[in-house]
């Protein structure tokens, strides 16, 4: 009984559903979801990102307006007013007391309304005064207004004006700008392209049907198969091609291609140097000398540069704000294991790989306003890679510097060897080394510290005299209060490591990190200014303060500059180091352990040193793969490529098998027929069709004029026709050598076939213009 009663309801429901425009609703919903997802992930406003849902309200409002009798101007006024009200509610929350069930609803709402008006007034005043507006409410207000109206416009243009592109383009522009500014992956843009393309096909499809219905023109019901299928293939194909365009149409893609070229050049050079070891290249005129650090020495092509220049902090004068550019300066690949993705690391609590900094400058003497760089003019000695120092392991790094740079290259801690084009420079004391050279792509092997806190704590104070004399230097003008503060901080410390830890902790905890700090007044010590007077500071101040206070306490320390580790790019398998990673930090000397990094800057995480020695990462046994290889391998959608090629091959096989399947196809007679059919199909593809009433010889005669300029093709056709006629109508079957001969003729005519096909299909030159095309069916039963 229930089933009997529910059946009509189900039928009515199905009929109602069938009447609804499910397809456009789904596509519009997809477009809205793309916008919401992209804007939510952008986190323009950290505190609240629910404002992006205004687009749903806009879509609903647009649907209602499209169904109303409103004209365009009325609808425009209506939606503008509604969107302003909605934006005000979103920002001011005037109606929220209603939902909260408070007793004093009216009072609460009036207070909220007044607060909103005050905010509006303050925004106006700020705009008039051209002062900064720190209230994110203005952004939310405008965002809600824009999103609402984009949604309304999308639905209005689709449902009322029936102009798809007008509705899609504002939404597409909004999505594109958001993705561009927030640096998101453009996957959502591809989804939008697919949905938009389908929508662009759906609306004219419906419009044509309505027009045909109105004019009572008969049309086939199954038309949507060809139409929708074609639109889907076009939209998906273009979305895929657009994803591929990222590779060939962006600086990053050009960079990958350039890497491939450079890698090939290097391999060719290696092979050439191996094969022609004793052959000297011809002398060429040397280029004019270029000033060091001008960037012109870079071998990186100009179009591959992402950041303009590599600009590590300059500590010769403390007070220069470090580079904050998000542009990529370099890619660094290491022999350490790759870090886990953030979600995996959070879930599994796995230990991240050791943290490293990419050092380029070492500073020794502090003069109260800045630091003097270490002199590498005299070559010294260092520990070779065969003997492992205490608390260290070998780290192989592959640098690929995109920005222009000077002669000083980058390396972690203590570089030992470097690939051709660069060299390791050792300090006079032999305790430090840096890498110099003009190359932008090099590999370097370094000893990096892996000493645990226990090991460093027990390192002692047996400093070499040269180290102590160099790295305990302090200016005489250093204010006393700095010394007093250092003493007070380290009063409880018994070992140099404890002192370093306490000073680092003090700086990280008690001083504010900010880039908006005025430079030190003339004549005032920079460290004193930072510790006692400045509103805060950045890495140069932090590092200088720690190094000075450690020297006060008798611990050798120095300030070094370079770049922080950067963010790991899982696609490339390398660290992407932006300009904003420019950094200054502290290295403290521990007897037998050498220079160990410390991080006093509050904005960066400190080095993790457990009490026990962490496991030593595997020693690199071979050179790292080229970054270009990694990038290209990562960028190419191998799965799709292989699947696509496989599908094409499978389809070709099926077609060939279908064409070849006939009784006796493997006999010379069948082979002759197959060859002829293949030839006819190829000629039909080039525009040479024939009706069924033409005999093979008549067809050959008809083709003589169109094939006048294609003698090889005409010969192949003539021979294939002769053989086919004989195989079909004569009792004398062709022999294998004859069919082989025709096959070879057909193969030799490949060039002319391609030329004919090209002229017929791509240049628009129809064969029928040169000779009247036989009218009739396209196929002839061969």
């Amino acid at each position, binding site marked *: 009984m229930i089933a009997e009663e529910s059946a009509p309801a189900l039928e009515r429901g199905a009929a109602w559903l069938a009447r609804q425009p499910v397809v456009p609703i789904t596509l519009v919903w997809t477009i809205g979801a793309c916008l919401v997802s992209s804007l939510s992930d952008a986190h323009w406003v950290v505190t609240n990102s629910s404002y992006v849902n205004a687009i749903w309200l806009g879509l609903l409002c647009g649907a209602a307006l499209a169904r109303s009798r409103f004209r365009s101007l009325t609808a425009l006024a209506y939606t503008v007013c509604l969107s302003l009200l909605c934006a005000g509610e979103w920002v001011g929350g005037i109606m929220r007391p209603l939902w909260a069930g408070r007793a004093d609803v009216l009072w609460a709402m009036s207070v909220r309304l007044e607060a909103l008006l005050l905010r509006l007034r303050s925004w106006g005043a700020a705009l008039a005064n051209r002062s900064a507006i720190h209230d994110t409410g203005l952004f939310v207000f405008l965002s809600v207004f824009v999103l609402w109206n984009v949604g309304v416009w999308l639905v209005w243009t689709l449902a009322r004006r029936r102009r798809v592109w007008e509705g899609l383009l504002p939404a597409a522009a909004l999505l594109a700008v958001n993705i561009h500014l927030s640096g998101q992956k453009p996957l959502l843009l591809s989804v939008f392209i697919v949905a938009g393309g389908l929508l662009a*096909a759906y609306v004219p499809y419906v419009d044509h049907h309505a027009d045909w219905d109105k004019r009572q023109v008969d049309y086939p019901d199954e038309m949507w198969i060809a139409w929708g299928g074609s639109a889907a293939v076009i939209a998906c194909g273009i979305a895929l091609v*657009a994803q591929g365009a990222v590779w060939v149409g962006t*600086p990053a893609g050009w960079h990958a291609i350039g890497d491939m070229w450079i890698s090939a050049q290097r391999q060719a050079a290696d092979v050439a140097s191996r094969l022609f070891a004793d052959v000297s290249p011809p002398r060429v005129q040397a280029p004019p000398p270029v000033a060091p650090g001008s960037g012109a020495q870079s071998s990186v092509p100009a179009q591959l540069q992402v950041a303009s220049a590599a600009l590590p902090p300059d500590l010769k004068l403390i007070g220069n704000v470090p580079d904050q550019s998000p542009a990529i300066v370099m890619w660094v690949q290491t022999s350490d294991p790759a870090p886990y993705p953030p979600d995996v690391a959070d879930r599994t609590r796995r230990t991240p790989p050791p943290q490293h900094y990419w050092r380029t400058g070492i500073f020794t003497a502090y003069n109260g306003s800045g630091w003097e760089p270490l002199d590498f003019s005299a070559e010294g000695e260092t520990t070779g890679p065969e003997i492992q120092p205490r608390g260290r392991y070998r780290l192989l790094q592959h640098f690929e510097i995109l920005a222009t740079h000077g002669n000083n290259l980058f390396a972690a801690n203590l570089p030992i060897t470097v690939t051709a084009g660069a060299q390791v420079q050792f300090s006079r004391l032999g305790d430090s080394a840096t890498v110099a050279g003009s190359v932008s792509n090099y590999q370097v092997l370094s000893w990096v510290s892996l000493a645990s806190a226990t090991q460093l704590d027990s390192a002692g104070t047996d400093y070499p005299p040269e180290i102590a004399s160099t790295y305990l230097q302090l200016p005489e003008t250093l204010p006393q209060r700095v010394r007093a503060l250092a003493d007070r901080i380290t009063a409880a410390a018994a070992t140099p490591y404890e002192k370093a830890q306490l000073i680092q902790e003090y700086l990280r905890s008690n001083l504010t990190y900010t880039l908006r700090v005025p430079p030190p007044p003339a004549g005032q010590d920079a460290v004193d200014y930072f510790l006692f007077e400045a509103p805060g500071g950045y890495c140069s101040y932090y590092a200088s303060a720690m190094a000075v206070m450690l020297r006060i306490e008798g611990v050798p320390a120095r300030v070094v500059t370079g770049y922080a580790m950067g963010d790991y790019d899982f696609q490339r398998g390398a660290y992407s180091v932006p300009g904003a990673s420019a950094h200054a930090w502290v290295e403290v000397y521990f007897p037998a352990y050498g220079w160990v990094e410390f991080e006093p800057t509050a904005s960066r995480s400190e080095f993790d040193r457990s009490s026990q020695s962490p496991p030593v990462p595997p020693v690199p046994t071979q050179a790292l793969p080229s970054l270009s290889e990694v990038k290209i391998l990562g960028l190419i959608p191998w799965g799709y490529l292989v699947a696509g090629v496989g599908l094409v091959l499978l389809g070709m096989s099926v077609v060939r098998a279908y064409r070849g399947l006939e009784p006796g196809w493997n006999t010379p007679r069948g082979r002759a027929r197959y060859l002829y059919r293949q030839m006819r199909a190829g000629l039909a593809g080039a525009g040479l069709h024939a009706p069924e009433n033409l005999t093979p010889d008549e067809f050959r005669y008809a083709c003589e004029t169109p094939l006048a300029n294609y003698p090889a093709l005409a010969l192949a056709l003539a021979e294939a026709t002769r053989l086919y006629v004989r195989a079909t109508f004569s009792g004398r079957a062709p022999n294998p050598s004859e069919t082989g001969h025709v096959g070879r003729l057909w193969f030799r005519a490949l060039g002319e076939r391609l030329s004919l096909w090209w002229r017929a299909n791509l240049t628009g030159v129809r064969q029928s213009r040169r000779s009247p095309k036989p009218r009739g069916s396209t196929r002839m039963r061969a």
Partner: protein
Amino acid sequence: MEPVEDAGLWTAVRKIRAAVSQPWVVRRYSYSDRLVTLALRQRLPLAALAVVLVWYLAAPSEVTAIGLTALGGFLAFSFLWARAMAQQVTARRALHYTALQVGDEIEEIVTLNNASVFPVAWAEFRDQSNLPGYTVSSVRTADPQSELTWRAHTLCTRRGTFTLGPWEMRLGDPLNIFSVQQIYTQRQEILIYPPLAPLPPHLLPHAAAMGTHRPLHQPVPAETIDAITVRAYVPGDPIRHVHWRTTARRQAPFAKVFEPEASSTVWLIPDFDPAVHAGSGIDTTEEMMVLLTASLAAQLLKMHLSVGLLACTDTLKVVPPRAGSMHLWSVLRALTPLHPVEGGATLSYTLAQARPLITVGDLTVAITPAVTGNWPAALRQLTHRGGGAEALLIDPAAFGGQGQVEAARAALMELALTANIVRRGDLRPAPGAYGALRRWEFVTLGTGRVVARQRPREMTPPPGAA
């Protein structure tokens, strides 16, 4: 003055808007049988592409590369698709039978050929044929490299001269960015002859005078050489009937009139005065009159009589009397396109125009639904030269008209003219009466030679239509 300027400004804005909203013709192709226009319907993607291109050139990024590729891809794909539709999709239509009568089925074979690698998502045929109830307008789809053939047909319900074509085919890409219009300019005129009906014997003319119920004279197979007089030449007269001496003397063409005993001629004079006809659609006195005229001509020709036709609409239409079955087509071809026109001639005027053509012994048959007027007197005057005259009166009351047909008949009889009344339902068209038109008929002569007696008629335009 300002409102005028405003009006001018608004007019200019409207003109610009109208010009912008028109599809932008990208290319035109001219073929022997068709004109093809490829037009850009959606200009917004092109404008957006230009903007994204500028953005891309200024700051290449992933987003701009994707946007550029997507917009360029959509435009390029749509253009290639539409170009293939313009160049490699053709259509043709072939008329199966070219000789038709009311009641026949007109049939055309329409073929859509797609030689491109793209499927035809939609191909809309727009036919401007004016044959009532007939069109090949429809929408079709076709697979790549395929040909689609279908049959368009309808029943011919109206006699007349009609035109098939011109017609056009509209195509486009699935995204509707480009549109293709193929205009096939050729047109084909077809004649749909009026139907025929078997006539009851009492409707056939019998005698040249009242009271003599003998059959009409049987004509000799050919004209004699004895011409008794001349008359003014009318179009349709054989050239050999021209009397050159009189023509030279009077500086106007004159035709010979042969000896009355040698031929027996019936003139059929239908009345195309719009004021006397009644009815609507195809159920009118006019169609009844045409049916009666055509059937009468067929019957009389079958009786080996010479039959002539004289009708006057806005112009005078004369088919000189001739014998033989083939002459039926001349009569029908002249009769088929005739319709009453506003301000057309009355029957009295038409009969007056016939007077110079009537010779001794000719029988005049007036066919009319007119029950009033002075046309009986005009008809009576045609008998003064020794000929006969009859009237076939179509009852207008049966078609919603007014007038007493019996009174008209009485008036005619008072003038010693024979009159028969034809009422609605008296004549029933015989379907397929022209079936011979569509097939070959052969006869075997006594010598054993086989000759074609009837062959399928090809369409020929009516005289003077070219």
